């Protein structure tokens, strides 16, 4: 299970203020904490309050500050291609682009960018018409991303298909469709593309958010989920991922498995 720490996001108040004041300390604190807790990538998102023209410079600053505090690669999270590219230019190691949709014009921007920078990339199984209603429609869009990634020379092991998770309190019927999509994405190509979810979406505006997130993570893993953008600062969530990893025989058991999961 590849955990992608979600916390360095301008959507959160402390990070938003850090960006505003160009104060590196809160960003570094989250970078270190998520690294210690077993994250494999750190998601970087400027948040909605930064103006479009300021996003590239903000992304560049966030990537630099984050990588000063952590050896981990970043998952560059933006709808602005200039911001993503600005992050890629200063990034050390193998970055992840978050994300393209199945819209042709977007794939024509982001997939060549991933190939050029040797970055992994998340492909959302949706297009301008919105989020598909069932697994079949999600898979059809996923297949378009797979075909385009192949054409642009992005290896399947570096393509992460996101089936799009919706909040369980308003879109309950999507839960089983997402899990079914996770299962079937593996059949789209050989070698298979990987799968990722934006985990915390499942619990938007619900009470018991951590409980819902943890439960869904383990259910996704049982269906073959490879990665999740998640609250890695939730220790119980990381413990559950580590335990599911052991039960799924992804790692050889030892008594200290909770610790070894965090050290990888």
């Amino acid at each position: 299970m590849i955990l992608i720490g979600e916390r360095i996001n301008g959507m959160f108040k402390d990070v938003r203020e850090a960006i505003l004041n160009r104060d590196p300390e809160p960003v570094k604190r989250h970078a270190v904490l998520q690294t210690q807790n077993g994250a494999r990538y750190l998601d970087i998102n400027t948040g909605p309050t930064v103006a479009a023209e300021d996003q590239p410079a903000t992304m560049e600053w966030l990537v630099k500050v984050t990588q000063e505090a952590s050896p981990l690669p970043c998952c560059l999270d933006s709808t602005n291609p200039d911001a993503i590219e600005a992050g890629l230019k200063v990034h050390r190691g193998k970055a992840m682009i978050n994300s393209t949709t199945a819209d042709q014009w977007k794939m024509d921007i982001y997939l060549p960018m991933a190939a050029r920078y040797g970055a992994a990339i998340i492909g959302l199984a949706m297009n301008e018409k919105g989020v598909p209603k069932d697994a079949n429609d999600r898979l059809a869009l996923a297949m378009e991303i797979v075909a385009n990634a192949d054409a642009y020379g992005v290896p399947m092991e570096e393509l992460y298909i996101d089936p799009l998770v919706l909040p369980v309190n308003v879109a309950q019927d999507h839960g089983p469709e997402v899990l079914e999509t996770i299962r079937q994405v593996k059949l789209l190509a050989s070698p298979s593309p990987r799968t990722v979810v934006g985990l915390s979406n499942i619990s938007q505006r619900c009470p018991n958010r951590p409980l819902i997130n943890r439960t869904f993570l383990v259910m996704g893993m049982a269906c073959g989920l490879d990665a999740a953008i998640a609250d890695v600062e939730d220790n119980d969530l990381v413990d559950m991922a580590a335990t599911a990893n052991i039960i799924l025989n992804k790692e050889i058991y030892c008594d200290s498995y909770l610790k070894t999961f965090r050290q990888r």
Partner: protein
Amino acid sequence: MSVTIAKERWSSKCLETVLGTGVKQVKVGGDCTLPFLHFEGEIPNPPAVALEVFDAPPQEWPDFLSAAYEGVLGDPAAWAKKCTDYGADLVALRLTRTHPDGENVSPEEAARVAASVAEAVDVPLIVLGCGVEEKDAAVLPEVANALSGKNCLLGCATQENYKSIVAGCIANGHAVIASSPLDINLAKQLNILITEMNLEPERIVMDPSIGALGYGIEYAYSIIERMRTGALMGDKMLAMPVVLLVGQEAWKTKEAKTPDAPDWGDQKKRAILWEVATATGLLHAGGHIAIVRHPESLKHIKAHINKMMQPQQY
């Protein structure tokens, strides 16, 4: 019709361990793929073979094994020298006299013997305790101190007695054999416990416990194989090199000990073949250091390794 050779791509590799000092230093591990599959990935170091030396004349060895060391059986330093004359990459000194049920010699006396052996040879030294966990916990730190700076391999450390042995290795610059009872989960856990004491993982060599051919070799084979695939898939706590205590297992088999069995052929030939088959079989599973007893076995195993280290043409 052309044939496409299927090649596995691994994300990680085994750790490399360096033993001894100077020109006769031995490097093992560092493998980037399964044993001897040169076409898939780099295998920077061949497996090494050690000959075993006892600190007292062995009581239960068949004559033809003792005969190979005639004249030196009562002198561990001379015996060790003889092993290097036979071409051993390393010498493994076994401190049998420390056993509480036997002579029960002191840690200081054992350390003195170990130092005399280390003085006599220029190849790396492995020192094995008597196998009684409590006694080894007292003896091996003393040995570690006496051999300070010689970069030896000391064992066996178990989950019960690793602390004092590992502390001795850290203080004196040695590597440790981490021993587990045919159990990969315990092997991994012991490696974690040892690294938590701040011994570098490159200074750990795993003894998974083995059985000789016909005596459970398949259990050891599959555990060593899983250790290797775990290491190649990125499990750092299973990436250490593997030591095979072949001699102690092969020479207690009925096939090695029985003199009169016409159907089984000549005892000497049979016993040596048993040791060779056990060692080479487990080298193919992923072993890195084989400790054997008969110089003829050493010769056969080295010849096998030389052949297997020739690059394949694909």
